[in-house]
């Protein structure tokens, strides 16, 4: 008890106590505000009154918290602050104190006990809430059965009619006497048994609709929060009154919704009446002392609005309370000068103050960053860092962690993780430098719209610069065109306008992705027949109605429905006949077919070559011949460079048209070629890495199945990538495809990097177990790799007389002839490579014609790598010898 007595005099408990007292008048004031609001809103729709009541209810805990914060921050902090809750100095002995003052002190001293009492009450309401929650759970599980299927189906239909997508279960229960809704995540409507058979279908539907309206309005969550507020501020009657208004208006809102949907308010009211009437038939342990509100609702539904539900009583009692406490508060400070410091500020100011503190602490982490890291986050990588990464970075505690994060950040984006330089990082900083140099106006270049665009998507493929101002061009503007942006589409146009002539170009429209069906229409359906101009127009459209209109116009211009049907037929034909690994319409034959229709004649040579002849192609010429060849037997015919093409300009025109129609960039062939060469060299580097990985694997005892499978898989993937690249080669125009391949390549390289890291870890672990020192072992490993890489296998038929003699358990002597056979080969190196273990045999003095070395080995299988030099040719050769140690 003494502990509690001590606690209630702590500053926090005192602040809490004062808050409890202050809330008496605050709550009363808020109650009066609601009463006044309801008076004003008399005759307005129920949802307005509901909103008002909800706001007031939410304001109550807010006022409480704000008051607590204000009292706490403004508490007297001087060392002389008295220990007692009441600020009466103890030295004022009872004799010196007049009777009135003494009683105030006594009163306040006793008031301190309000805090534990209040806590007790809160605990009670918490327990009550938990018990209620448990009871609701039981209600859902006990004594229930699923309603007949046709009723569940009706409920689903009703839910769909109010556009409610969450499934709601319909159950019959023998424990409820009225339809109720439970659960928020998995809502269920419980109907009392007999409800479905005792009421008409329409009546049940009305009731179900009422409950569904609750689900749709998410009333369950509001109700839960409401219960929390009730529990916290249980001691104030105004809280309960406001809460009751919320509940009543909530039901009214749902009633209104049902009547809006179904009409016939009187019939609905009658349904409620029947329901209430039926309830009286069900036995109940004790009759509820307070009546329900159904009659009020029925009156409201069937008659003209009679006015707000608010009665005068609560308003009057609130007023009395307010006056009482206002008087008490004005009296208190006069008598207790020290306590006055605790409450000189009006509630709104206190709340604002508390909010300001909250904001400050929220911003603290970002402000806590030291300058270079803040700059890195908010300037260097502001456009390319993901939200998760940003959050992770802000959560870091030390500069070392941040350095590491930045390193990892760029590592993740490195297109060639094996190499020293990071092309992505270099390109990114180059872009920033470029924007600062070229786009700077009143703000730094990287901050401008053009800068942002440039940093995120790189240099545009084309820029239409209209910086010269004329009558028809009142503002300088630039039109940027990107041929392809991953995730947005082909031919992206971005317009920048300098409206005030300051040099600050602003983006007029974000190149947001158009809906998938239109993107498909543009890039798949009509990719070959839409002109670049039309494409540009279509991409600049923003509304779906405009797009629909455009599509209609598009076909009108090409001959209406017949042209559309013919185009669709060609697409279908191409897909049906030319599809291989890629859809038929994307193949070369598909492209030609879709654009120019069936050829006038088709000739086929030796099964791998097809020649199409068109008598006439508009814009190309007469007697156009197109050759297709299936070079690898995959069934996919590609357009080949016709031998006559050099002499025949037709072919080049055709190719150009094809390139344009597919929305491909007019990159020069050289450029594409060099890009593909880059890709190929990257691939070669990768293959080398893999080979290296395999060697490491061989050298490792942990070269277990998992590892080799992983590497094998990667190898296959890379082979697949290589194949695709090979395919992409003749099809040089297809930049989109190449870009995709490049992306794929990058992601695979990242995968490879990850698996290599794993492998390295395994090898490192193994190394610890080695007898040989780390560096010696590594040297050896590299030596072996170098040997195996440079030496060729022994020529066939050549025998080297290697002997392994077992001299005892676990002991062998290895004999290798120094020169053999016929003095053509000379021993250069010999290494024992038991799986994972490396024992260098070299070092012992060779005596006689052969090299002999005793070795102690555990029982098992081993391999001896011998490297010989061919004296005639100077080439090195290697051979492996297997032997077993017992």
């Amino acid at each position, binding site marked *: 008890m003494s502990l509690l007595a001590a606690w209630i005099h702590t500053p926090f408990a005192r602040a809490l106590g004062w808050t409890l007292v202050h809330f008496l008048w605050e709550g009363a004031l808020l109650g009066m505000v609601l009463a006044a609001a309801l008076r004003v809103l008399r005759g307005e729709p129920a949802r307005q009154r509901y909103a008002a009541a909800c706001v007031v209810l939410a304001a109550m805990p807010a006022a409480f918290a704000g008051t607590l914060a204000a009292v706490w921050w403004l508490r007297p902090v001087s060392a002389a602050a008295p220990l007692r809750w009441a600020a009466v100095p103890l030295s004022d002995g009872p004799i010196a104190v007049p009777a009135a003052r003494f009683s105030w002190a006594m009163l306040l001293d006793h008031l301190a006990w309000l805090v534990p009492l209040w806590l007790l009450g809160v605990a009670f309401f918490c327990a*009550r*809430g938990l*018990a*209620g*929650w*448990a*009871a*609701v759970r*039981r209600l859902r*599980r*006990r*004594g*229930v*059965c*699923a*309603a*007949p299927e046709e009723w569940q189906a009706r409920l689903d239909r009703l839910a769909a009619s109010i556009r409610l997508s969450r499934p709601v*279960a319909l*159950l*019959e*229960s*023998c424990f409820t*006497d*009225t*339809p*109720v*809704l*439970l659960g928020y995540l998995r809502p269920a409507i419980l109907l009392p*048994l007999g409800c479905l058979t005792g009421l008409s279908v329409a009546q049940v539907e009305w009731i179900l609709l*009422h*409950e569904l309206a609750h689900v749709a309005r998410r*009333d*369950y969550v509001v109700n839960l929060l409401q219960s929390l507020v009730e529990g916290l501020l249980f001691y104030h009657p105004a809280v309960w009154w406001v809460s009751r208004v919320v*509940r009543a208006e*909530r*039901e009214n809102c749902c009633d209104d919704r049902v009547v809006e949907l179904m009409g016939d308010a009187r019939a609905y*009211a*009658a349904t*409620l*009446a*029947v*329901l*209430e*009437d039926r*309830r*009286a*038939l*069900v*036995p*109940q*342990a004790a*009759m*509820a002392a*307070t*009546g*329900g*509100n*159904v*009659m009020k609702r*029925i009156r409201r539904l069937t008659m003209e609005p009679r006015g707000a539900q608010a009665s005068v009583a609560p308003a009057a009692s609130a007023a009395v309370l307010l006056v009482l406490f206002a008087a008490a508060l004005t009296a208190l400070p006069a008598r207790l000068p020290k306590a006055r410091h605790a409450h000189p500020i009006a509630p709104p100011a206190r709340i604002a103050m508390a909010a300001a503190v909250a904001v400050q602490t929220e911003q603290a982490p970002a402000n806590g960053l030291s300058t270079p890291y803040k700059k890195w986050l908010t300037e260097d990588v502001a456009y390319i860092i993901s939200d998760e990464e940003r959050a992770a970075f802000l959560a870091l505690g030390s500069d070392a962690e941040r350095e590491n994060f930045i390193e990892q950040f760029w590592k993740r984006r490195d297109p060639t993780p094996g190499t020293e330089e990071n092309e992505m990082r270099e390109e990114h900083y180059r872009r920033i430098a470029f924007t600062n140099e070229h786009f700077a106006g009143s703000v730094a270049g990287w901050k401008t719209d053009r800068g942002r665009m440039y940093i995120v998507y790189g240099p545009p493929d084309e820029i239409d610069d209209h910086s010269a101002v004329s009558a028809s061009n009142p503002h300088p503007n630039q039109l940027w065109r990107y041929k392809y942006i991953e995730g947005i589409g082909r031919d992206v146009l971005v317009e920048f306008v300098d409206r005030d002539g300051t040099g600050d170009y602003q983006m007029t429209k974000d190149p947001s992705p158009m809906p998938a069906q239109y993107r498909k229409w543009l890039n798949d359906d009509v990719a070959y027949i839409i002109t670049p101009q039309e494409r540009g127009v279509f991409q600049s459209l923003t509304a779906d109605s405009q797009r629909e209109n455009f599509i209609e116009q598009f076909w009108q211009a090409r001959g209406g429905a017949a042209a559309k049907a013919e185009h669709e037929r060609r697409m279908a034909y191409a897909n049906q006949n030319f599809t291989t690994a890629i859809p038929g319409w994307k193949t070369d034959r598909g492209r030609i077919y879709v654009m120019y229709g069936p050829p006038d004649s088709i000739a086929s040579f030796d099964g791998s070559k097809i020649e199409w002849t068109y008598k006439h192609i508009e814009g190309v010429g007469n007697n156009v011949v197109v050759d297709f060849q299936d070079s690898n037997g995959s069934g996919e015919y590609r357009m080949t460079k016709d031998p006559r093409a050099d002499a025949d300009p037709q072919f080049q025109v055709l190719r150009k048209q094809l390139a344009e129609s597919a929305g491909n960039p007019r990159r020069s062939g050289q450029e594409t070629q060099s890009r593909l060469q880059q890709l190929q060299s990257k691939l070669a580097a990768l293959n080398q890495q893999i080979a290296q990985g395999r060697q490491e694997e061989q050298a490792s005892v942990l070269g277990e199945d998992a590892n080799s499978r992983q590497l094998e898989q990667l190898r296959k993937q890379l082979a697949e990538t290589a194949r695709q690249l090979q395919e992409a080669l003749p099809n040089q125009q297809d930049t989109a495809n190449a870009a995709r391949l490049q992306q794929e390549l990058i992601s695979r390289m990242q995968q490879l990097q990850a698996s290599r890291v794993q492998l390295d870890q395994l090898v490192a672990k193994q190394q610890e177990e080695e007898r040989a020192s780390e560096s010696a072992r590594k040297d050896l490993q590299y030596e072996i790799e170098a040997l195996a890489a440079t030496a060729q296998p022994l020529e066939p038929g050549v025998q080297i007389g290697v002997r392994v003699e077992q001299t005892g358990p676990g002991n062998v002597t290895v004999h290798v002839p120094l020169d053999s056979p016929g003095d053509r080969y000379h021993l250069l190196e010999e290494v024992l490579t038991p799986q994972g273990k490396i024992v260098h045999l070299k070092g012992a003095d060779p005596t006689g014609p052969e090299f002999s070395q005793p070795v102690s080995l555990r029982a098992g299988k081993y391999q001896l790598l011998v490297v010989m030099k061919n004296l005639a040719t100077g080439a090195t050769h290697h051979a492996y010898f297997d032997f077993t140690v017992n």
Partner: protein
Amino acid sequence: MSRANEPPRPTDAELEILTVLWSLGPSTVRDVHETIARRKPTQYTTVLKTLQIMAEKGLVKRDEKQRAHIYSAARPREWTQKQLAGDLLQRAFGGSAASLMLGALSAHRASPAELAELRKFLEEYEKGKS
């Protein structure tokens, strides 16, 4: 008035079957099983076994006249509800549970005065309709 003639309080599983029987009326085991299985996976044999036990306890009646036995609740729903109303948890915390649920009607029943007014309204409504 011997207590021995009264059926015992049903267990939760038995209560669920009783609820189905009150909802559907006299039913075959298959009907009962189908309804229960729609809410949670349940074996047919489990339902059959439970019904047989309930028949022994006197909670349900079995009509063996047809090939498929027809089961029906031995007591009306109201009787069992009264029997279960003594459920401590349900009674002690019914109020707090009610405030956690949303219903077409308020958690509190209408007072007798309200009921009278309500019935008057209904009568008028019926008259107005005809």
